[in-house]
């Protein structure tokens, strides 16, 4: 039996949604016969004729159409070719979709899939992490699965949710994560997961950074440190309780994110812990993000730009020795 990748899981979850609910359709550039830029909709057009539809090259029009269809009772899934291009449809997402229910009492159950995050050589237009920008807007739900299982179950749930969902799927994980079978049950959305237990330090991460944090935790274990890794799963809603409970065990916090450092998810995590859990802290909480520059093309520069197993380990040691 062949293994199931993170990408397969996303394809399977969409098939599941199309099968389960006649209101679901997929709309995006080359999602039809071509099967999507990353093949996340491979064979779906054949299996579900007329429900996996190619769009024009206009992210603005794609999201606009989806919002209209949602108002009429449909549950569209929009595929962006790269998260970076979703900024062309930004107005439709943050001004229209996010606020629709609050303005009109009409739900907007759309799911916008953002293939995001860095891969070697991706450069400034094909590597960015935008979860942090979308999380800023009230009305949006922003999901960042770190495992094959979560990619599958969270996408199914995303389509079922009545609010607009930004589904951030990490391009590096697409083919790097594999499992034997897809799950039949999952944690509810909005609940973080303890990916590794430890008592010396809490690393809060999401999406691909969870995998890097786990690897760093493995290295630190050989040095005698027991590091707990919290996988946020969903950055909005943010499961402050699980983070706080973990920090209450460890007293130390490192928040890791692949997005740019200014503001964002890691800043939010630290702000919440310091304001609500100041007395849990035995060391100044730290955060680790990409560098505050556009993302470089060159693989060496890119490796220096984003948080890595090594830089996570170094930041963790600094806190552990405090």
């Amino acid at each position: 039996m062949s293994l199931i990748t993170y990408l397969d899981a996303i394809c399977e979850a969409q098939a599941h949604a199309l099968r389960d609910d006649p209101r679901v359709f997929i709309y995006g550039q080359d999602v039809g016969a071509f099967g999507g830029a990353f093949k996340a909709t491979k064979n779906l057009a054949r299996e579900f004729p007329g429900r996996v539809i190619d769009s024009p090259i206009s992210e603005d029009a794609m999201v606009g159409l989806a919002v209209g269809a949602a108002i009429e009772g449909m549950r569209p899934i929009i595929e962006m070719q790269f998260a970076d291009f979703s900024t062309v449809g930004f107005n439709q997402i943050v001004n229209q979709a996010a606020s629709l229910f609050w303005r009109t009492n009409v739900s907007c159950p759309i799911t916008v899939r953002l293939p995001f995050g860095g891969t070697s050589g991706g450069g400034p237009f094909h590597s960015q992490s935008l979860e942090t920008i979308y999380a800023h807007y009230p009305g949006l739900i922003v999901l960042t699965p770190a495992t094959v299982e979560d990619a599958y179950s969270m996408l199914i749930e995303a389509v079922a949710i009545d609010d607009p969902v930004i589904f951030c799927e990490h391009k590096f994980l697409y083919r790097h994560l594999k499992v034997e079978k897809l799950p039949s049950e999952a944690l509810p959305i909005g609940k973080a997961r303890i990916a590794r237990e430890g008592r010396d330090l809490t690393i809060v991460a999401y999406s691909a950074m969870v995998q890097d944090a786990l690897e760093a935790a493995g290295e630190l274990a050989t040095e005698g440190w027991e590091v707990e890794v919290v996988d946020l799963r969903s950055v909005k809603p943010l499961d402050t309780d699980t983070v706080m409970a973990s920090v209450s065990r460890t007293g130390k916090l490192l928040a890791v994110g692949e997005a740019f450092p200014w503001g964002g998810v890691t800043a939010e995590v630290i702000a919440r812990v310091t304001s609500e859990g100041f007395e849990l802290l035995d060391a100044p909480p730290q955060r680790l993000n990409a560098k505050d520059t556009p993302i470089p093309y060159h693989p060496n520069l890119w490796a220096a730009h984003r948080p890595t197993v090594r830089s996570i380990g170094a930041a963790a040691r600094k806190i552990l020795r405090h």
Partner: protein
Amino acid sequence: MPFIPIIMPQLGESIAEARIVSFLIPPGGPVEADQDLIEVETDKATMTVASPCKGRVEKFTAQLNESYAVGASLGQIEATQEEVVRLGLDVCIQQKSSETEQLSKSGINSGKSRVQPTIRGLPVPANAAGASYLSPRLKARMDELGLHAADLAGVAGSGAAGRVTVEDFEKYITSLEKHKMSGASTMRVAVADAMRRSWTRPLATVGLPVQLDVVLAHRKASDPKPGPALYALRALAIALSENSAVAGRLVGNKIIHPSSIDVGFAVEAEDGVLVPVIRNADKRSLKDMTQRYNELVDLARQRKLPPDATGGSIATVTNFGTFGLIWATPIPLPEQTLVLGMGAGRRVPFWDEAKGQFVPVMEAYLTLSFDHRVLDGGAAGRLLQRIGELMKQPEQL
């Protein structure tokens, strides 16, 4: 070859900066590790900055007669790679940082460097050792158990700069469980709290022997008989009425003067000490206050002091001589600057110049403990001398 910065060291606990007096080795000259390099002057003394390693003085960036903060870079030593490895140093600054040159040319830096953190990693205050720096979590945990930093005096910290981490704390608390424990009385806890607060100040003690023969003769002839400490109390009150500033409290940059000469005296009660107060002790004669004094001693021992007889005093007298002690360094109450102590009287030989021989005299030591922020040894000594003089003429008290 790597370059090692010459850093202004922490020259003393309160020293924030020092002025460059002279360079002891010329630029280009060879130096050994720990050899004196630069003479610097602080408010308190002249000291030297030693070379961090063996090598050659590359240059001094500091200017003569300029002051530099602790942690500031004063120049560079060119050292061999082996020397750097031997020292375990990993900070090698390049010979010419164009940015620094640019800044100094444009005059933005004008020779004043920013204080560099002295501890690698996350910031902790330089004096964090032990429980002098508490993380929010440690502080919360201590509050939960009703503990103070002084309770952790015996804990060696394992954290950055020797701070006590939560883990150190929990281990310590667990280790206590092996011992027999008994509850401290309310009085004990109150005294502990007062002493702890008082000990946040720099306290010093001076002592002076006084002859008690005249005092004892006066006492014998009096009715009712004043206690020996009362003579000292009255003498202190008179001395303070002549200059009350020495009993003032220092708050920020102000001396807070006492508004009246109310003097307390220590009375041992069960498991603690009480301090009844004689109001306006400068305006009442010894004879006047004797009965009140005796009353207050009794009330204190029964722990029935009226509210108007406690608190608000500006200094305290303690007769530790009642325990047979001849010398002690009592600690003033936290809201007071002075505590006058009186030792046990002893018959000692005294060289009588007129008779040309030793004569037996009754002698006791007076001690004065004081907040060194408010007065110095000289002022404390003069106050004590004045008290000694006044006690030579008990009939005037």
